[in-house]
């Protein structure tokens, strides 16, 4: 069933152009990451940092030690930032005189930014001072993303098994990623953003006298420095309530493409770095190919759905066609400068790379467009952000090896290590924690009248709002069907728990798997070994991913977006 309106040549061309640039960056940036993860030399600022933190960069850590350090470091940062948000009225750079967030909202905000979810139950310009935006949010955007990459580095070293049971040193990984990757790139990207019109100032809100003689108060702030790390670290939390739809966060299609490239930069390059670490670049490319295929299919589906428009709007008199003077499509919640193509690109990227920023309101996407964004977060392995995407994808690689092993009746091996009961149990814990949190919390919310009071839309779409909230929180994405009023004690508490589940119940078991595999002796590949660096195996993994995902989530998706779509085709409204 083809949509009534097909995308124009201009729409397709610009998407292919951005994807091509993204693909060209994989190898150079992958090399850079590989150097960061393996280089023996410490730079002078890094040595100074280790002295200030009183850590020994040479201390080797096994997976337990590495995980403990990671968790403790996160926990302390959580407490510090909670305190800073609560103390906001007494701290500097608060020209608007904003009050402190309530305790449960501050908990939600602190957990959200620590877990790299960047779910925002508040509106930035209304709730956080310039100091909080910088000292709490911007800091967490660096450290939480670096935490994810550090975990990925440890995980990859474990699988590569180059250093026995040792996975590396958490402090070294954290510091290097911040100093060598995030800080220089963020600074450069922020300057490009400012050139294009993103503000970067400590000046207070400006009052303009409009042409019609009214006053318009325009909120400003140090936006560019937050925007660049927000996307490089696939964080996603906006300076303003409407995030990257706001012209000050995303003033031109060029900044939109730059945001997209920043989001894809490190997750795509990580696959190449992984291949190099394993000394098996084919393995890296197979993972990249599988992820890229899923991403391209999602992007295409989103573009078709949004360009196809909404029959309800058509019946109301809207011209949604593509002509020489308009881009057409479903424009509710979208910006004219982006049109359907740049919006589809951003929505596909932000839900694949688990960023969570939005340049259009996902609540107002067509049902199938919304479905694509949901599915990418449910699979949670299409690139994924800050290292965890690769970790999640490896769950399915191991699962595929295990299934293939069962089919041929051999002990499965992955990267030369035997996969045994313990590893499979840990993988299944990680695989199951994700849907349990999404579906469990959704089921809880839809049975509570108080929770349903937060809905902005009736019917099937209202159910999708709740489903999206817990999917986004668990996937540490942070985007929302933002009509849902999530700033209630119930949602602040439960989405906070979902974020913690999604983050640590996948990260920690998978670090354990890496540690266990690292400690095993390598078995030489024989004639009966299933090769995991082939396109065939890549296809098998994608199939396993889709089957597990479909079996888990299809019922919920049918109740939500699928029902919504059928109603929309009939022109039925609620």
């Amino acid at each position, binding site marked *: 069933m083809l949509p009534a309106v097909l995308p124009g040549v201009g729409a397709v061309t610009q998407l292919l*152009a951005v994807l091509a640039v993204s693909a060209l960056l994989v190898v150079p940036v992958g090399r850079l990451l590989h150097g960061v993860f393996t280089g023996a030399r410490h730079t002078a600022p890094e040595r100074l940092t280790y002295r200030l933190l009183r850590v020994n960069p040479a201390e080797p850590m096994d997976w337990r030690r590495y995980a403990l350090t990671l968790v403790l470091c996160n926990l302390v940062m959580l407490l510090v930032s909670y305190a800073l948000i609560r103390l906001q009225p007494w701290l500097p750079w608060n020209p608007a005189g904003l009050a402190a967030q309530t305790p449960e909202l501050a908990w939600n905000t602190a957990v959200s930014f620590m877990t790299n979810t960047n779910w925002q139950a508040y509106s930035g310009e209304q709730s956080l001072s310039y100091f909080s935006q910088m000292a709490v949010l911007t800091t967490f955007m660096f450290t939480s993303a670096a935490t994810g990459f550090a975990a990925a580095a440890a995980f990859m070293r474990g699988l590569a098994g180059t250093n026995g049971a040792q996975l590396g040193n958490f402090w070294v990984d954290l510091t290097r990623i911040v100093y060598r990757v995030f800080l220089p790139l963020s600074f450069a990207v922020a300057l490009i953003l400012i050139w294009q019109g993103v503000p970067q100032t400590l000046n207070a809100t400006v009052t303009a006298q409009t042409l019609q003689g009214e006053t318009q*108060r325009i909120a400003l702030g140090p936006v560019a420095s937050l925007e660049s790390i927000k996307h490089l670290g696939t964080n996603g939390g906006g300076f303003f309530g409407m995030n990257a739809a706001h*012209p000050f966060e995303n003033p031109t299609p060029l900044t939109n493409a730059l945001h997209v490239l920043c989001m894809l930069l490190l997750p795509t390059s990580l696959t190449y770095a992984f291949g190099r670490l394993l000394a098996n670049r084919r393995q890296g490319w197979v993972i990249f190919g599988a992820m890229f295929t899923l991403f391209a299919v999602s992007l295409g589906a989103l573009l078709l759905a949004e360009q196809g428009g909404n029959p309800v709007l058509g019946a109301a008199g809207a011209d949604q066609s593509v002509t020489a003077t308009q881009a057409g499509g479903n424009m509710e919640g979208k910006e004219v400068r982006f049109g359907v193509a740049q919006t589809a690109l951003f929505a596909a990227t932000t839900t694949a790379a688990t960023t969570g920023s939005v340049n259009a309101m996902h*609540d107002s996407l067509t049902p199938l467009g919304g479905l694509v964004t949901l599915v990418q977060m449910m699979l949670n392995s299409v690139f994924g952000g800050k290292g965890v995407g690769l970790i999640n994808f490896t769950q399915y690689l191991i699962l595929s090896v295990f299934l293939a092993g069962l089919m041929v009746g051999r002990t499965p091996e992955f990267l030369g290590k035997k996969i045994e009961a313990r590893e499979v149990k840990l993988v299944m814990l990680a695989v199951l924690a994700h849907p349990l949190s999404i579906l469990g919390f959704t089921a809880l919310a839809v049975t509570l009248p108080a929770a349903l009071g937060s809905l902005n839309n009736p019917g099937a779409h209202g159910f999708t709002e709740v489903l999206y909230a817990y999917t986004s929180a668990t996937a540490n994405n942070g985007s929302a069907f933002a009509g849902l009023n999530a700033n209630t004690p119930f949602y602040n508490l439960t989405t906070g728990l979902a974020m913690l589940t999604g983050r640590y119940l996948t990260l920690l078991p998978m670090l354990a798997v890496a540690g266990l595999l690292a400690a095993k002796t390598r078995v030489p590949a024989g004639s009966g070994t299933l090769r995991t660096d082939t396109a065939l195996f890549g296809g098998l993994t994608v199939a396993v991913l889709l089957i597990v995902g479909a079996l888990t989530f299809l019922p919920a998706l049918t109740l939500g977006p699928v029902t919504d779509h059928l109603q929309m085709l009939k022109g039925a409204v609620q």
Partner: protein
Amino acid sequence: MTLPTNPEPAVPGPATPEPVIPAASLTQLLRSAALAALLFTAVCGLAYPLLTTLAGNVLFPAQATGSLLLRGGQVVGSALIGQDFTTPGYLRGRPSQTNRTDGSGPQPYNAENSGASNWGPTNARLRDAAQERAVSFRADNGLGASAPVPVDMVTASGSGLDPDVSVAAALAQTGRIARERAVAPAQVEALIRANVTRRSLGVLGEERVNVLRVNLALDALSAGRR
């Protein structure tokens, strides 16, 4: 809270040929974590944004402070932020769903409180709003009762601050603006076409018309004729 004892001895053992690096104790770990929180806040949360602010304001002072537009020394708005134009002689922007800053009710194009409808595609409120906007757009611009209206004029933007309309939406308003300002429609159309923003790098995004810039140009045109 009682801290579990560390399994590894914190003190180095007797001298061995291979120096064993001691694992940090739990107390040491917590201290390092606290120091890391402070250090990274100072570097990433203060030094980095402040340095960016400095560099941005030296290199691109106009953009860094909000791309403000001035007329006769008075700030009349930002080139990037839409305004609520209701007077028939001005080009109108898209519908905006922003609210007052205190949340007490609608206030279109409130640049202190960005916002969207977040209505789903099958929400009756979306259909009703779209119908109402289509009817008033046709009436304002002398279009037939069933003439299709450019989709961006019947839908609200994501930010509520969209500074642009599609070229189609701008051209459809030519007749009304020309009549109100008593100028030739061709003049208004030429002015709109001169203010079309092209795709970035010739490829990215969509062609569009910045509403505030067009209206500043319209005012300048009228002032020149007076």
